[in-house]
């Protein structure tokens, strides 16, 4: 079948290389388990999805050990990380229960951690989860949204970075395109 052929040509390493061209925001998905233990994972696939009703989406690798625990309570917060929060990525990418050591946070309205210093906190209830290829696609219904301050962290080609404005007027039709 065609799909098998495609899988032979595009190796995971090549996929990573080419998709590394795509700049992404960096978002920490946080929640708690039954024992009120804080859980978190970092994704580069968080996206806006629907205005009415308000929905967001992200993808998580099926091999993630954190997501199966996090999804149990069906609530999560998407913390859009700021450009001085590279350390949080490292902490949350660690294995084991110590991820939240030295990570100041408060609890949001759904009881999920809001990491101090994020540029936005989006509280969600999981409304759909679809297995697609080697990832789960998660759709969250937004129950609460709060703006923080600071500039967003970017990830691109294996490197962290910042947004650099281009000093040029932008016509209205292009602005509404996204």
């Amino acid at each position, binding site marked *: 079948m065609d*799909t098998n052929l*495609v*899988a032979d040509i*595009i190796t*995971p390493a090549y*996929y990573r*290389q*080419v*998709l590394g*061209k*795509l*700049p*992404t*925001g960096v*978002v920490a998905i946080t929640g708690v388990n039954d024992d009120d233990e804080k859980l978190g994972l970092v994704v*580069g*696939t968080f*996206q*806006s*999805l*629907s*205005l*009415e009703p*308000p*929905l967001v*989406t992200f*993808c998580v690798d099926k091999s993630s050990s954190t997501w199966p625990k996090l999804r149990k309570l069906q*609530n999560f917060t998407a913390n859009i990380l700021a*450009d001085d929060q590279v350390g949080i990525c490292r902490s949350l990418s660690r294995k084991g229960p110590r991820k939240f050591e030295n990570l100041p946070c408060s609890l949001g*309205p759904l009881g999920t951690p809001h990491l101090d210093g994020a*540029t*936005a906190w*989006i509280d969600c209830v999981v409304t*759909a989860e*679809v297995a*697609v*290829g*080697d*990832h789960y*696609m998660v759709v969250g219904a*937004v*129950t*609460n*949204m709060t703006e923080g301050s600071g500039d*967003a962290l970017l990830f*691109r080609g294996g*490197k*962290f*970075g910042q*947004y*650099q*404005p*281009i000093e*040029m007027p*932008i016509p209205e*039709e*292009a*602005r509404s*395109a*996204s």
Partner: protein
Amino acid sequence: MTAMAVTASPIDSDRYRAVMRHLPTGVAAICSTDPLSGARNGMIVGTFASLSMDPALVTFSVTHTSTSWPKIARADRFGVSLLAEGQQQVCRALSAKGEDKLGALDWSESDWGTPRIHGSLAWFDCRVEQQIVAGDHLIVVASVLEMTPSDGTPLIFHGGRFGSFRESAPAQAA
């Protein structure tokens, strides 16, 4: 238990937009050639994302009122051009109304028959695998037939504006 909090804070579209402005995104042009008329159709999305490595899949979403997407999806293959800084005119051209949106742009056809916009960071030849309705948008899941990298700095949409990527100091970027 949480239902109170849910109903107590309705999120209107202004609020949703204001908060989601904090999320920076790449900018991608989705284009195809109509199999019957030969016309080129295209649109800009800010939601292009990686999805699965094995099999190779990518995803993006489109509003259900989009008039461009149904035209693009008429072809069984479409191309994604990941835009570089300096390609704002591609956004303008593809966001405008009209029949020949690619007319003023430099592009050529890939081996898969999809339009590739010159000067982009990477090109993907894709085939639609699934379309999932989610609220007022459609999630498109597409398999990647071929992907080709190029060089350059990405165009980024953030806070309602276009910009580019500046790498953090090496000490921070370990």
